[in-house]
């Protein structure tokens, strides 16, 4: 899952970026509205965390522009403006959520997860694909009731595939959502992680869940194919 953080107060921006990355998100960031708008329009993000008072281009303008251009990202406004009028204005301008500073980082993280669920139309935090369970609230994965240990990148990949279950997801889509602007997406890093996931998820005695579609991408789903 890829998140864009647009915040001009450097220490706060750095901490949010660090916290989100450690939670397994690919994070892009911008210190002013101009760069933030450019990032939001150039890459596909699942969630944009947007401050309102920004240099060069303010948050209101970014919000308006992104909604006019039908940007699919869910936008969480993170601001010091705490009046009802500001909240109403923010939501009417197209924000999906509004959080006032100062805030608990755990709450920010929970809201980001909720926005991702909404984006993929998942009403529950438990995604089931055959006998594979992905618990997005606890970031835990089980198969046939057996817990599977995954790194944060591996978890991010399986969660993204689970959100797009039974649909072919191209390598570039995976790159878009799982790697931030600074990652080297030219390499075969996706194939490597798919390989690692297969080793941890697939079992000889259970149906295959991760399918390769040559020239198209990957698909997570129980298609009834045995090993």
């Amino acid at each position, binding site marked *: 899952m890829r998140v864009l953080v647009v915040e*001009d*107060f*450097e*220490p*706060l921006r*750095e*901490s*949010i970026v*660090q*916290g989100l990355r*450690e939670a397994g998100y690919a994070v892009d960031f911008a*210190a*002013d509205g101009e760069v933030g708008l450019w990032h939001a329009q150039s890459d596909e993000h699942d969630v944009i965390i947007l401050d*309102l*008072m*920004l*240099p*060069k281009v*303010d948050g209101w303008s970014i919000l308006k522009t992104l909604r006019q251009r039908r940007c699919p990202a869910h936008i969480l406004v993170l601001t*010091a*403006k*705490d009046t009802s009028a500001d909240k109403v204005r923010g939501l009417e301008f197209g924000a999906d959520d509004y959080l*006032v*500073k*100062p*805030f*608990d*980082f*755990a709450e*920010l993280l929970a809201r980001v997860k909720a926005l991702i669920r909404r984006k993929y139309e998942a009403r529950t935090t438990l995604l089931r694909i055959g006998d594979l369970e992905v618990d997005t609230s606890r970031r835990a994965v089980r198969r046939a009731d057996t817990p599977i240990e995954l790194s944060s990148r591996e978890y991010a990949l399986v969660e993204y595939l689970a959100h797009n279950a039974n649909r072919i997801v191209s390598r570039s889509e995976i790159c878009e959502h799982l790697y931030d602007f600074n990652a080297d997406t030219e390499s075969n890093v996706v194939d490597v992680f798919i390989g690692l996931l297969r080793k941890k998820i697939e079992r000889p005695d259970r149906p295959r869940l991760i399918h390769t579609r040559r020239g198209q991408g990957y698909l997570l789903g129980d298609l009834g194919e045995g090993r």
Partner: protein
Amino acid sequence: MKAANRSLRWRLLLGSSISTTLILALLGAAIFISVRRSLVAEFDAVSLAKADALATMTERHGRRVKFDSDQSLPEFVSPHRPEYFELRLEDGSPIARSSSLGAVHLSAAPATDAPASADATLPDGRRGRILTLRFTPQTDRDDEDGDDRRAAAPRAAIVMVARGTGPLDATLDRLRWLLLTLVGSAVCLSGLVLVVVVNGALRPMRRVAQEIESFPEENLSRRLDPRGVPAELAPVVDRLNGLLGRLEAAFARERAFTADVAHELRTPLAGLQTTLEVCRTRPRDVETYQATIDKCLAMTAGIRSMVQTLLMLARADAGQLPLQCAAVNLGELVEECWRPFQQRAAGRGLHVELRLAASCIVQRDAELLKIVVNNLFDNAVSYADDGGDVWIRSSSDGGGCAVEVANTGSRVSAEKSAQLFQRFWRGDESRSATGLHCGLGLSLCQRLLCLTGDDIEARSLDGVFSVRLIIARRPRAPT
């Protein structure tokens, strides 16, 4: 009772009632006295007429004085409520007296040429008045004797007429009761009229009081309706509305200021909280903890700086900033203040031109001036474009000194220059250096300079932002 004492309505009613009663009572008394005086004068005139008649009937015959009455004079002989007279010579020798007197003598008033009247008790015990008239009896022409006339000197006589004042007293009694009734009724009636008039006159005041009472405490936007307010209350309503306006503006300023303060503190607090929370999510190495602590300390320094600035502004506003003025060489002070900024300016590649007047002595609080100058330098070094120019100049003339700090790279439009001194105002809405540049610096500079009556001007033109301090030789009254 105390509430009644404080009531304007009661005071007006009481004052008006007392004064009306007094006026009516005095008026009644004046009428009574005047009527009484005129009735008594009429009574005395009748007595005088009778005394004159009696005097006319008294004649001198040689050495003797005789009362020669050829009339019956029935009032002096009536058995029922008679009148009395007595005639005697000045030496007391009797001439004549009414039969009604019997053996009793009337007591005469001291003899004067003018008739004298006085209240007295009549011989039969009734109240009455006695008139005393001094006269010289006429000589009887038929009885003239040349020798006797020459021999006898004129002798003065006194006539006293006493009459009962029963009818007069009865008339005066009726008048007294009539006046008392009239005055009492007039007092009661005027009291009722006063209640109605005072209530009517005070109605606008009650309306204003009720209107003020109905004002909600939290809403200062309401104003008193000046329509229908009497002329006497119009200035009060006017002033109250003005006061409410000023109060509303002051509260709005305070609310905005508090909101701004809260708002400005939110972002660095969020930074602190998030940095600490993220750090705590998992065990870290010592270097990471060290870096986190340093980061938090830097944010705390920013918050502290803002709080100090706010405190200084509050103290300056409250007049609690003591000034310690002494001779200060402005050029030296500017140079000393600039030194700590040199490294930052060099780091940003700024071209700095420092042109300071040799001698520029002013009587000022050096510490406050340093705060002002440091603020200007901090702004210039922070907001100048990378590799841009900074000019620092001081000059002096007969009136005082001027310090100008200017930098290129200004993003403030010329139109917005007027807002530069508003608290928490910034050229853009960025809080990129929250705590260090929270839009208070220029406000603080202006407030501090105001304490000594000095001026500060700022303008942004063609990308050059400049601030100019104009400082007189000696402090002036605060502006």
